[in-house]
Structures are given as structure tokens and as C-alpha cells.
């Protein structure tokens, strides 16, 4: 814990992240305007009335960014939870049982990794209707492979430890040993991977929404706000700057926190 405190970047990340979570949870309370209603007749630069300005059709950008953080963080979180669960199951079975099962599962991981996942996601999104739930599921389903490999490696080392043999000797079943005895010992790197994975998921969600296959307007997300801003970059850069800044800050702080956690769990490095 002390080591985490010493890492200034990690603390910065944690504070920014805390702030964003606060914004996301209380978006409906603290937003000065309705994010989907047109409150001005035209685009306005940042002012006291509209801190972040208004967008191309006169909506308050501050409110839209706040509501957008709700979408982006939720998508990021749920997608990571899905990825972690799949990754744990694949990695644990693979690493614990080894042999043929390991070969089959890991080759499947290789195949999944060999797909350019952004095209896979785009294809699936075009076939399904691009709504926020599909975005979460699709991102989760295409980002679990790293976790699976990580968990497999952890299980390969842990299963040789004697407490596993001791657990067998008191009559624990394989599943019990996997989830009750070994998994808690492997949780540290999984937490780090989850933190970094969430940053990736937020970026993917933004990219998808930017391409119009993610969160659909008029619901604001950081990605689709950027898409709307493209045409006005020269005349009204603030439309792009603020959602862009929020994406940057959230991803950056997740990386800082992840790196801080990694140092805490891995004091050798």
C-alpha cells in the first residue's frame, strides 16, 4: 500500500478515475443541461454559461461529456468483466489440466488473436444492431485472450506448489482446487490486467462509436461526440477537444493505476 502511495502517477490516476466515476454516477444531478436537448441556436465557444461550449447543433458539451463518461465507463467495465470471466475459465482449465485440453484451448486463443479484432467487431456490429449492450458483449468476447494466457501461466506455476498437493490430500475436487485454492493466489496479475484491459475497452468503444457502429446518437458517448466534431475541427475545435481530453485522461489514469498495482504486486521489478 505504501508503495502505491509513493507512485505519484498512480495516485494521480486514482484521483482522476475517482472523479470520472463520480461524474458518471451523478451525471444526471451535476449536468447543467439535458445532454440531448438543443439549448442554443448555434455553436458557441466555451463561456461561463457553457463551460465546454456547445456543439454543432447547440447542445451543451459539458453535459454531454458527463453523460458520455457514464456510457464509456460502463461499457469499459462490463466488457472487462466479460473478458476476465472468459479468460479465467479458459486459462484455468488450460493451465491446470494441461495436455490435449491445453493444446486445443490455446490454439483457439491463437486463432482469436490472429483475427484483426476491430474488423471482427465491425462485422458483428453490422450484423447485429449496434446498441450499447452489443458493444459491451462484442468487446468482451474479443478481448479475453490476453487474460487467458496470463491466467494459464499463473496456473502453470501455482499448480506445482505444494499447497495444491495438500489440497488434493484433504480430498478437494479439481474444480474446488481451481477456484477456491489456486485462483485466489492468481488474483493479483488478473487485477492488473483488468485495469489495463478497461483502458483498452474504453478506447475500443470510442473507436466503434467514432465509426458509427457503437453507441448510437443522440445518446452521447465520447466516441460519437468525436465523430460529430470531425467536420468542425477548424472552426469549433472545442467540440472535439473536450471528449478527446476525457478519453485521453481516463485511459491514461487507468494505465497509471494498473502500473502502480503491478509494482505493488511485483516488488522485485
Amino acid at each position, binding site marked *: 500500500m505504501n508503495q502505491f502511495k509513493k507512485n505519484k502517477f498512480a495516485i494521480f490516476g486514482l484521483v482522476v478515475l475517482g472523479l470520472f466515476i463520480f461524474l458518471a454516477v451523478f451525471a444526471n444531478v451535476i449536468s447543467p443541461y439535458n445532454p440531448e436537448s438543443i439549448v442554443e441556436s448555434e455553436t458557441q465557444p466555451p463561456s461561463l454559461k457553457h463551460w465546454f461550449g456547445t456543439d454543432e447543433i447547440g447542445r451543451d458539451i459539458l453535459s454531454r461529456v458527463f453523460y458520455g463518461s457514464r456510457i464509456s465507463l460502463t461499457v469499459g467495465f462490463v466488457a472487462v468483466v466479460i473478458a476476465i470471466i472468459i479468460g479465467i475459465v479458459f486459462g484455468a482449465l488450460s493451465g491446470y489440466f494441461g*495436455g490435449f485440453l491445453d493444446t486445443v484451448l490455446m490454439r483457439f486463443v491463437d486463432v482469436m488473436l490472429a483475427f484483426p479484432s476491430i474488423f471482427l467487431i465491425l462485422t458483428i456490429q453490422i450484423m447485429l444492431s449496434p446498441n450499447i449492450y452489443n458493444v459491451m458483449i462484442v468487446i468482451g468476447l474479443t478481448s479475453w485472450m490476453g487474460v487467458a494466457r496470463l491466467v494459464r501461466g499463473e496456473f502453470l506455476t501455482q499448480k506445482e*506448489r*505444494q*499447497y495444491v*498437493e*495438500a*489440497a*488434493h*490430500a*484433504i*480430498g*478437494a*475436487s479439481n474444480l*474446488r482446487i481451481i477456484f*477456491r*485454492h489456486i485462483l*485466489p*493466489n492468481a488474483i493479483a496479475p488478473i487485477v492488473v490486467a483488468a485495469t489495463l484491459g478497461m483502458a483498452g475497452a474504453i478506447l475500443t468503444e470510442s473507436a466503434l462509436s467514432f465509426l458509427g457502429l457503437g453507441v448510437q446518437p443522440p445518446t452521447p458517448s465520447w466516441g460519437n461526440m468525436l465523430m460529430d466534431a470531425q467536420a468542425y475541427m477548424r472552426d469549433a475545435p472545442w467540440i472535439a477537444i473536450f471528449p478527446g481530453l476525457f478519453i485521453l485522461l481516463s485511459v491514461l489514469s487507468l494505465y497509471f493505476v494498473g502500473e502502480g498495482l503491478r509494482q505493488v504486486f511485483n516488488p522485485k521489478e
Partner: protein
Amino acid sequence: MLLEVKNLKTHFYQEGLPVKAVDGISFGVGAGEVLGIVGESGSGKSTVGLSLLRLIDLPGKIVEGAINFEGIDLMQLPEKAMRNIRGAKISMIFQNPFTSLNPVFTVGDQIAETLRFHQGLSRRRSRDKTIEMLKMVHIKNPESRINSYPHQFSGGMQQRVMIAMALACNPKLLIADEPTTALDVTVQWEIIKLLRELKDNLDVSIILITHDFSVVAELCDKVAVMHNGKIVEDGNLNQVVQRPKDPYTQKLISTVPRIE
């Protein structure tokens, strides 16, 4: 006889060729008896212990033999029934108490877990029983120590916890695989003293696997000497220690340092 092993063979396969770790051994343990299995490293003595619980993983395999325990041949039992034997009827403790305990759970949790899934005790009951077990292995302040993690214990105390866990479900047989080897000499004798006390107070037979004849002499009723996967000599303690017949046994006994 509580346990009767007949012609047990456990082989490990390396590139198709068998390494005969245990090569046709037979022995028996009566109720309340302590059998010492003595041998040097690589003699196959630890493999015997693991074979009795059927804990041999690939590339190893029990290729032949019968393990009669309370009249049932363990070799014929399905894996699920075998799990109900492990920890409940036959328990095992290992050489390294520091690595045998799971580092992320409190010692109380680990003992209580055994009780909960073998005996279906409630949280409360298993906690009471855990405290009772810790008392039995002479851990001070068990009510508070129950919440300690393994790394907060010394090696000797960790081994006491392992013993408490192994005996929690009142097993009939305890297999102790080099239970004192990894410990300091003074702590070794405390653990031996504890095992002797438990043997006298509880209705439990012990198979003590060790390379150390002095430990055997303190604790065992019967001895079997193993060499290259075979039992070269067995019999009562006094008979084997004082009048060893086999040259290997004689050599092994002569290695025990004496204060002349």
C-alpha cells in the same frame, strides 16, 4: 489390519520407459500402530505415501497392486469416493509446512474448510472445532491465532497447523511424509513429541516416511526399509534396529551419528 498393501507397483514413464519408483512392495499397518518407512532420497518412499492416497499424477501411474483399507480395495474405488477418503479417513502431511499451506487464507479458514466439506459442519461449529484442534496441537491463544495467515507462523507452528488440519476429521490413518525434515533440530523434537502424544490419545495409525532412523526410533512400532523401490527388510523396531539382517539396513543405521 487397518491397511494392507499387496504388491504395490508405481512407475513413472520417461520417454516410454518405466522408472520403477515403487516396485512391488507389501506391508500392513494395524490399528493404532506406527509404521516407519525408511530410505534414502529416491528410494521411492514418498511415492508410497502418495500412492496410498492415489495422488500419483502423469507421467506416473500405479500399475499394479491392492490397497486394502478397512476391508475396501482403494484401487477399485471411483475417484469421487476416493475424495471422500482423502482427508476424512486417510490424511497426509508433507515435508514443507511453509509451502503446504495456502498463503492467501487464514489457518483457521483452511482447517475449517476441511471440516465443512467432509463433515458438513456449519461455519460456527467448524470454527469451534478448529479452535479445539489448534489447542490439541498446542498452539497458544487459538481464538486469536485462528485469524492469522500462514506467514505469521513459525515453521514448527505451521507444521502443527498442518497436523491439526490432517487430524480434524478424525482420520484412521495419518501419512506423515518427512514431517520434521525441513525444521530446526529443536523444533523437530517438539513435533515428534506431539505426534507421539496424539498417537497415544487418538485412535489413529501413522505411517511415518523418513530418512532419519533417530526419528523412527522415537516413534515407530514397526519399520520397513526401502531401497530402489523395494522393501529390503521389515519387522519390529527393536529387531530391525538392533539386529539388522540386510547389509543395506546395516549401512543405513551406521550413518546415524552417535554421541559416544
